[in-house]
């Protein structure tokens, strides 16, 4: 298991390098530049050139990339050009908000998704199955941005149960978590349902029935357990999706977080912040995938064998 873990960790190095290069190139190749957003309306071209030199933006791109990557590897993500603070401070200030939002949304999608999927599978073709699947279809097709506004209208404006926006109290987390989580519920429930229905058709399940094991015990202890493997895969891939979803949700709910930081900095082309925030998101996705692989390997010896 340890060698499996080390191998998977080593695999992340080339992925990290490739991702850092892609992030750097995307950020720098998009037209627009931070100096435009930094200078006053009456500034001279000389002032702009001096600022570009100050932030190293006059150097060739490959040099800028190697300097940035070299510093990033030592934990120095540089200083924000527009926001005028160390990027690491900005990320440290915002990351906990995104992580708590993401973790709660993931937990919500997992618990509600597996429960809904299991119910739909156990009561296949009944009204429970049909209602669950219809709700799931709705949940997976409504865009997060719109769903967020709908939830605000219902729970904050009409019912007054939760605040409209912000991050001043715990209850301000409820609507953002629902907004991101509901999309995940749909996916997890669908995968759980299909996997459980397929597992239920396997020979060992037939045998358990033949041996007279109670049906609820077969469903929960044997079928669901087997069906969880693809669910774990989906959940680990879902981490990236959830963090991506947090970008729009943080915007709608005016919450602090990497998403809000990313949007503000992207609009101002604050290169160091955009690069730093994207790199953090990429690392979070990579670690999430790694975690998923480890959990899967722990659950299924076949996975461990494959990597050997």
């Amino acid at each position, binding site marked *: 298991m340890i060698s499996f873990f080390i191998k998977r960790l080593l695999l992340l190095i080339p992925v990290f390098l490739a991702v850092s290069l892609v992030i750097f190139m995307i950020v720098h190749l998009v*037209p627009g*530049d931070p100096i435009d957003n930094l200078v006053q309306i009456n500034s001279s071209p000389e002032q702009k050139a001096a600022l570009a030199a100050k932030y190293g933006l006059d150097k060739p791109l490959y040099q800028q990339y190697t300097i940035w990557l070299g510093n990033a590897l030592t934990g120095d993500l540089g200083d*924000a050009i527009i*926001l005028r603070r160390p990027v690491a401070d900005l990320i440290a200030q915002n990351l906990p908000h995104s992580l708590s939002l993401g973790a709660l949304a993931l937990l919500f999608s997992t618990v509600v998704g597996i429960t809904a999927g299991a119910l739909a599978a156990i009561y296949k073709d009944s009204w429970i199955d049909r209602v669950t699947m219809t709700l799931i279809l709705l949940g997976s097709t409504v865009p997060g941005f719109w769903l967020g506004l709908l939830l605000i209208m219902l729970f904050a404006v009409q019912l007054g149960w939760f605040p409209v926006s912000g991050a001043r109290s715990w209850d301000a987390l409820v609507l953002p978590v629902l907004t991101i989580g509901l999309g995940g519920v749909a996916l997890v429930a669908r995968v759980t349902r299909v996997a459980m229905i397929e597992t239920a058709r396997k020979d060992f399940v037939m045998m358990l029935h033949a041996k007279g094991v109670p049906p609820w015990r077969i469903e929960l202890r044997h079928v669901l357990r087997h069906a969880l493997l693809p669910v774990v895969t989906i959940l680990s891939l879902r981490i990236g999706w959830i963090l991506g979803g947090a970008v729009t949700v943080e*915007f709608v709910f005016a919450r602090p977080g990497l998403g809000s930081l990313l949007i503000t900095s992207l609009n101002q082309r604050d290169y160091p912040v955009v690069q730093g925030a994207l790199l953090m998101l990429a690392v979070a996705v990579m670690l999430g995938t790694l975690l998923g692989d480890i959990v899967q390997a722990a659950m299924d010896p076949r996975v461990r064998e494959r990597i050997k």
Partner: protein
Amino acid sequence: MRYISKTRLFASSMLVSAGVFGLAIVANAQEATFVVSAQNVGTPSYNPINGTQLNDAITLIFDRMVIQDADQTFHGQLATEWESTADGMSWTFKLREGVTFHDGEPFNAETIVWWIPQFAETENAFMTAAIESVEVIDDLTVRFVMANPDPNLLSNMSSGFMSIPSPKAFDALGDDFGVTSAVGSGPFKLESFTVGQETVLSANEDYAWASDLSENQGAPHIKTLTFREISEDSTAFLELSTGGVDLLYSVPTDFLPRLEGEASVQVGTMPGTGLFYIPINTTVEPFTDIKVREATAFAINQKEILDNLYGGVGSVANTFLIDSLLAANVDPALKISYDPDRSTAALEEAGWVMGSDGVREKDGTKLQVALWTQNGTEFKRVTEVVQAQLKAVGIGADITVFDSATINDQYRKGTDHQLAVRSYSWANADIIDWFFSGQRLGYPNVSMWNDPKADEMNLAAMSGSRTWEERVANFTTYHEYVLSQYVFAPIYQPVQIYAYDKEAIFVPEAIRGTRLQSQTVVDITVN
């Protein structure tokens, strides 16, 4: 015994609850939450000297030497009197007595001697570029010795960028000034600032030097004032309608009908500082021909856009400057207002004849042009109407939408764009220099207009004026020449719309100044 203790416990808990509740009411009675305009979300710092983007809380933390009223007249704040010599080479300011910064440091002539040189080498250096040195006459009088006359000096000094920080705190904090802390002499002290999220201010109880524009000459009525940053206008609107916040600094025009339907919401307007217009690239065909430019300018039906897109809120633009600027008072014959006959005649004269598909042609070439715009509902809607209006006179336009940070880079190429829908926000005539100076072709001179005669007028207006009146006259002449060359088409002047919860706070009807700033905020009371 047990009963007694339970009763006591109950009674004391009731007392504590009542006390807490009472305190909450008292605290609530003096607290308010304002939402900054969406365009100010992400303002990086409260450092007026090197900041290039500041939000409206800056005028609450700091004071300025002079401030402006809505009619653009100047009123003293930290300066009580001022005068300049006839040649504009010297300005004398008398300073207010008894002013202290939030850190207890005194404000006096030495403060100004320290303050002005701080601008050198910063992004805001142009603000004080004309000041050669500052001389102390006495403890409360200073003289600016000018390198060249700058009739715009008072206007610069009334801007938030010329807010005066505490020298001691500024030097001690270095790059952290405005980021971790900010110390001024304004009616509010900065308690905390989380970039992109919120700024919490507390009343400066020692404040006793409000300008004559404020009724309240003492400490502000609001004791804790929070500025929240909300990017999404719908979210800000819902916060206001549910009582989550008390005032929105800026409301998009299309929210007006909904806000007016809210019983507790009061909407107010102030003259705007912005203008929508169409720069015309004078270096690419067919716009090298002034007749085609004239036809384009007169094809735009400003009134139709004002009425149909903005519900009549705001005003039409007929020049390049907002109406409140004196240099906007040009010869009426030069104003550009919708005139389809004039537009058609100009096109006919230029040899463009109407084709069977409604698009004009000349020597086998269609009058089909590129019309650029930036993303955002408002820009897209205005651009679509402009496209239809151009089509009405026989000019076909293909719309391309760019994101706002990308489009400036595209303009720099200079040859790809023809027409564009743009807007600016700036309450000074020198905006003409910024967008039409031959020194800045591509961007910001999107019209690519390089005319030696215009640059001569530009020079006279920008650095050849000795007095304010002379500056106005020079800018008016320059402005009139710009208008006569049809290098742009004016569209619309938005107003600033603010909204507040009238059950929560009282906002004076007359907003002093060009924005909702300290001169009015100190008069706001919590109901």
